[in-house]
């Protein structure tokens, strides 16, 4: 039982750390180095941007580079959890919840929330699912 608790705490802590590192890196890239952000997604990833489905890395890349204007994100909320094994069959996965404000071009900033499913792909955390919603 203690082992399980330890294991659980470890998983939890890892999920926390992953989320913290991921969010910092992700939004920095999104705002300042968007041409490199495709590296953060799985080839089979799905992005839902305000209900617009973007499937697959190629489409995501094109969407982020061509459809989405220059952005500036400010994060004020971060939460994450280790995803249950029963769901992902042992594939290490983390659910991340982010909230903040985003500004496109020179428009006024709007609040947004975003959920990510991050998964271990060859020892690199990659985004498998990205749900983005402005409030």
């Amino acid at each position, binding site marked *: 039982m203690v082992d399980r608790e330890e294991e*659980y*705490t470890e998983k*939890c*802590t890892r999920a*926390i750390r992953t*989320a*913290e590192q991921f969010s910092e890196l992700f939004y920095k890239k999104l705002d300042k180095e968007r041409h490199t952000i495709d590296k953060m997604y799985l080839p089979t990833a*799905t*992005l*839902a*941007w*305000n*209900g*617009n*489905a973007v499937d697959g890395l190629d489409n995501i890349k094109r969407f982020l580079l*061509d*459809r*989405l*204007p*220059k952005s500036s994100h400010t*994060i*004020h*909320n*971060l*939460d*994450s*959890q*280790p*995803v*249950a094994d*029963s*769901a*992902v*069959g042992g594939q290490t996965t983390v*659910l991340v*919840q982010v*909230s903040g404000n985003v500004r*496109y*071009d*020179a*428009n006024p900033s*709007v*609040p947004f*929330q975003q*959920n990510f*499913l991050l998964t271990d792909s060859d020892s690199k955390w990659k985004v*498998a*699912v*990205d*749900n983005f*919603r*402005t*409030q």
Partner: protein
Amino acid sequence: MGRNFQKSNIYSIDRRYDQHDDRGSMDKGSIRNRLGQKRVGFDVGPRGGGIQKQRNHRDNRDNKTNLNNKYQVLQDDDTLFEDRSQAGRSRLIRGGRGGRGGRGGRPLPARPMPGGHRNPLTKSFTWYKIKLRSGSKYDKTLMLRELLNRSKVKFVPICYQNLQTDSVFYVEEVDAAKAIRELSNQIEMPDGFSLIITMEATTPPHVPVNSELTEKIKTEMSRRYNVEKKALNLNAFHKSFAGEEMYAPLWRSNVFCKVVEVIIENIPDVQAIDLSNNKLLNVDPLNADFRRKVTDLRILYLKENRVANISYMEKLKGLNLTELNCSGNPFKDRLGSAYTDRIRSIFPNLQTLDDKPMPKKIGFDEDSSPTSNSLPVTQSKFAKSSEAEALVLQFMEQYFKLYDSDNRQPLLDAYDENAVMSMSCFGGRDSMKDYIEDSRNFLKIYHENRKVRLLQTGRLPIVSFLTKLPKSTHDPTTFTLDLSFTSSTFMMFTVTGMFKEREGSEKRVRHFNRCFLVVPRGSGFCIVNETLFITDPTSENCRKFQTTSSMESLKNASSSAQQATTSQEVDQATQRTLATAFSELTGMNLTWSAQALSENQWNYDRATTMFQQAKEAGKIPAEAFVK
């Protein structure tokens, strides 16, 4: 004799001051710059006001002595600028220290000046008010005739009226105003006194736009409208009213707005409008409504106005102009080389600017970033698969029904034994007081332990945690759904929307974002991971909130994944097959089945869902089942 002596003396001093003034007048900007002071009654017009009072105070001085006259003259000059602080300057000059550019020696202003010498209000003073001291006791025609005869510059007196003891009228140009003022103390009145004339830069007279003036405006506008060319010439519109009782300068927004109203009502198909020479500071009355209704407008002339900043032009974005002329406006010089590009960004289809063809736009290859005008349209629902969608919608309906009830215990069934759940919130300490204690926001928590502890683990702790949260009523019309992952082992979906706190004194409305990870269990599924985020709604959110509603709108919303199928044509044969199947499924007759399917674009799944809902709501009449 004495008077003559005084006159010539005064005249020569006046002259000197005129020269002094002329220096300033070459560059209209600096006259205005010297106007430092905030006025007491800003826009006085014929009604008089604070400025008037000041004048009267000075009027009480004995104007017979040379000294006082000098002072008076200087004050008159000062009233050109109406600047109390300038009184310091006049003292200087009397002492003969030479006031020209003598800023350094100037004593502190009598009153504090806002932001230094430049009073932004002074840019608005483009009309000139002439005051004839004690004019009301003289014959108006006599005075005006004398002025008109003697003045070096022709003028038309505007809105002449008697104000207490003085007579007041306006002129449109500064040259005329100065020329008239030069005549001060030159004209001898019947009673032996000479006429004292003062001038000040001011706003145009304010005339209420009543029905009479409206008619006059309409008449003048139709006179200036060229029906063949669909061109409306509003160049120096006010000049058409000079000398009349009712004055209508476009500078006055009530006049401009009325003109716009008349355009929209009578000539919404106008193609060209000339607004030059109206001393305009902005073109705000050409608002969104105007742009929506006057869609054929292609040519706009704004020459020789006073638009000071290109931001005023940016407000016209949406006007599909092919020709524009803004020469003679301060903002053009201010922008320098950036002028053309800025104009182009506001009016992308412009071909002619300031009478010259627009230069070709040559950019850089990397300059292809999309603008926020092209943001993808928000869809309220996205689902990877429509079967999954139907299941998830059903799940959501049940879940929120339980969540909104007084007892959340039954939610136990929704969660996996080992589920985990966390909640975080964002908002003011007071607003979020019911949530902040358990808010799991890594950015606000420093102790790792606490971060771990706040994760609710196991379904019993989770549900007991949920029970502690304020009771709620969700509004499904505000819901969005993103079902972005489905597989045989799990699904992930995010729901956002609003709910109202049912109890407590404030009954606050909140916005939430909830992400669920569910795994199959039995014939349905249960939650293994859940994040809940709560925050205050934006005002836009609040507007959409309704107190009683159902999930209908979300179910009916076309999901972006389904859009492809709905646009497909379904041929007759398929329709018949579907209708038969549907009839068997629902028990309805063929006609009703076909109708139900047709209403749902022959989407079988959706029709099924719709049918179930309608049946539960008792909306299906008995005749539908009569075969």
